[in-house]
């Protein structure tokens, strides 16, 4: 009887300290973000102006869309290094369809970009899920292949003179909100609902948490892993199209290093690189932190060389904090 009481007391106190820990892990990252915004708004008067905030959001939307796809991939315990190159390829494909005297409808460019991205994602997913080649290797190879395909397709030259209808996707506004931000918001909510409320979302977590257990539970684990790369590819296509529309011409050298920013957003958000733990909400905050920092440093006139150093340091420190928190209990 008394041992039972003690056990209960122990589990109650453990539950309490777990609750504190979970509060911190849930809101700690949000807290850091708020503190960062407060500091920057004092450091520069223009930071909180609505014009600048919209600017930040527009900058964040490309990386945010990529980071959401990356969240799915990393939740399954994988990684996708190819997305910067895939983004560039989809960008020039979309650009080539809406350039010149007789441009196609932007909808065609949209579907082409997303379709090409999904195709590359499907190849990644097949090699990883069906043939069990490590994701790091497959997507590293794809990083090179997709970049090569981009240069080949565009002859290494930018594709200028994109149609105004198409450019609206990157530069337009609806009710005062930039179109890329609206697209990002739609992607975010769809991803959030999928991961939180659907069976498929549960499967993603289960596969990343313990693939053997997921298999034993009757989950089609290979299909789930495949689908994460497919989705990532499609989102890279979407991001590639938006980027092209924003920059007014399709650049074959676009997207260099974008995979690292996307991974950084996921990791800063606390999603575990081993899979099974994380959320797109944290990823959103992670992407916002990266966006706000580079915007703030821009406003303060800090050189982009320093910015890279600072950004890198923040990633490492974020993970370091995450590790020490997880090691406590």
């Amino acid at each position, binding site marked *: 009887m008394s041992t039972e009481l003690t056990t209960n007391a122990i589990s109650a106190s453990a539950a309490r300290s*777990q609750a504190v820990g979970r509060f911190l892990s849930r809101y700690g990252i949000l807290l850091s973000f708020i503190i960062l915004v407060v500091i920057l708004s004092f450091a520069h008067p223009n930071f909180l102006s609505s014009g600048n905030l919209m600017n930040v959001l527009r900058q964040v939307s490309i990386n945010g869309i990529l980071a959401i796809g990356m969240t799915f991939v990393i939740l399954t315990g994988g990684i996708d290094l190819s997305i910067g190159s895939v983004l560039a390829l989809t960008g020039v494909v979309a650009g080539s369809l809406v350039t010149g005297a007789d441009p196609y409808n932007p909808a065609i460019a949209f579907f082409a970009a997303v379709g090409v991205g999904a195709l590359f994602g499907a190849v990644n997913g097949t090699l990883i899920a069906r043939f069990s080649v490590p994701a790091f290797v497959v997507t590293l190879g794809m990083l090179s292949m997709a970049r090569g395909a981009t240069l080949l397709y565009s002859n290494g030259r930018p594709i200028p003179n994109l149609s105004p209808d198409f450019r609206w996707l990157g530069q337009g506004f609806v009710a005062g909100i930039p179109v890329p931000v609206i697209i990002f918001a739609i992607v975010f909510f769809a991803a959030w609902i999928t991961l939180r409320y659907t*069976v*498929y*979302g549960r499967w993603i977590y*289960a596969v990343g*948490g313990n693939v*053997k*257990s997921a298999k*034993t*539970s009757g989950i089609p684990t290979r299909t789930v892993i495949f689908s994460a790369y497919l989705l990532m590819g499609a989102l890279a296509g979407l991001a590639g199209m938006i980027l092209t529309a924003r920059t007014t011409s399709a650049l074959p050298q676009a997207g260099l290093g974008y995979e690292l920013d996307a991974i950084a957003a996921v990791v800063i958000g606390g999603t575990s690189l081993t899979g099974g733990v994380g959320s797109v909400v944290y990823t959103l905050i992670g992407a916002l932190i990266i966006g706000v920092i580079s915007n703030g440093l821009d406003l303060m006139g800090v050189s982009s060389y320093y910015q890279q150093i600072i950004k890198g340091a923040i990633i490492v420190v974020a993970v370091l904090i995450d590790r020490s928190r997880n090691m406590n209990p």
Partner: protein
Amino acid sequence: MAEPASLGEGKPEQAHHVLVPPASISQTTPDDGAVNDADLLLAATSISKAFAGVPALVDGRIRLKRGSVHALCGGNGAGKSTFLNILMGLHRADAGTVMVKGRVVHYASAAEALADGIAIITQELSPVLDMTVAENIYLGREPRRMGWFADKAKMEADATALFARLGFDIDARVTMRSLSVAKIQLVEIAKAISRESDILIMDEPTSAIGEKEAATLFKAIRSLQDQGVGIIYVSHRLTDIFSIADSYTVFRDGRFIEAGDLANIDRQRLISLIVGRDLRDQEARKSTSTGQSMLSVSGFARHGQFEDISLDLAKGEILGLYGLMGAGRSEFANALYGNEPKDAGTVRIEGKPVEIRSPSDALANGIAIVTEDRKETGLVLTSSVSENVVLAALDQFSKLGFVDGKKVASNVDGQIARFRIRTASRDLPVQSLSGGNQQKVVLARCVETEPKILICDEPTRGIDEGAKREVYAFLSAFAAAGNSVLMISSEIPEILANADRILVFRRGRIAGELEGAKATQEALVHLAS
């Protein structure tokens, strides 16, 4: 089939030996007095060890003579591993003395024990798969050239000479990866022998190797014996013990029970010493078998793991599958469930032939499994209790792909109450639960899929007695409702108390069948080893 009467004999034996005062240890067996000190390699007395207040070893003793193969026998939880870990310096004893070659020792690490000439061959193999056999044998003590460079040629020559001496047919130059598990085991044995220790501890050395390798190993053991090496031989395989060992020590429930010469004891008596008292204080299970066929398996095979497995499971029946580690029980269960491919075999459920290629096929046909290792293959440790409970049955809790959170919550709360899972909330990570409660989560998940057939692979491994009883009660009620259970266990008392019928696996085949009510520990061990 042996009479349970021999079990009765075990009781006074135990009482007698427990009462032996420490001072008279040397008189425990008549021949001990005759051993002069120079022949005594190792003498451990009254060793005790508790983990977090739970005694794992109460009174461990052993006397090992030069040139002797001494069998250390005991069931699960007898305290053998703890005892060996103390001898090897991996754990520190709470009390008791260990004397090695006439000197009292207190090893603080395995390195000290090794330096003193004690080597161990464990069950867990730890080869570096991409290094060569020779490199593995001399890992960490590589012969050097000019102080910096590993002398590969010398390593290979030494390893080749070692194999020739032991009679092992292994090429020292190939990588470990290219060897079979049996050969890897032999290399690990050679590695321990190469240290030229005079005390060698072998923990289940034949569990992963075939008859042929075992014969080679026994030959090597005999030649070591001739050189004066003392060997502590730990095994559940009594056949092996009787063919290689000359003396024995039996542990039970963390206590020394008896020691002596194998020449003076027969198999039946050794078994009853190991098994000891009857654990059937749980009320005897009344069979609820209806005789109607639920599952019929015939000709199941996966080459190299199990061959020609056929069995019938009736509605309401709990069928036990017993066998030693590596006998093919778990491999069979995984193939039946579709987790691993099979090479041959057919399955009928309620008379209808079914093809099970994947776990989802199995689930669709009403089969659920509790896998052997809940952490490795059972639970998604990073997820909550709730997510784990409903994982296999999500389609029942969803509409158009969306999970109905309220339905999940009320259902999971129901399961938590039903299985008395101790957790502050269904949303806590399953990782925070105790082993017994984690196991109940696994059972709850199986129940969620509304199975007719439940495969339980070691359903009570590593959980406490109270939780065990709850698991047994659940299985019994599950069967009584007209369902069937395939219960795999290597714990004899458990399988005797809970199974209506027991099939015994030995080296990948069914060695025999016993009626649960009439089965005895002796008969089971006899069939399995």
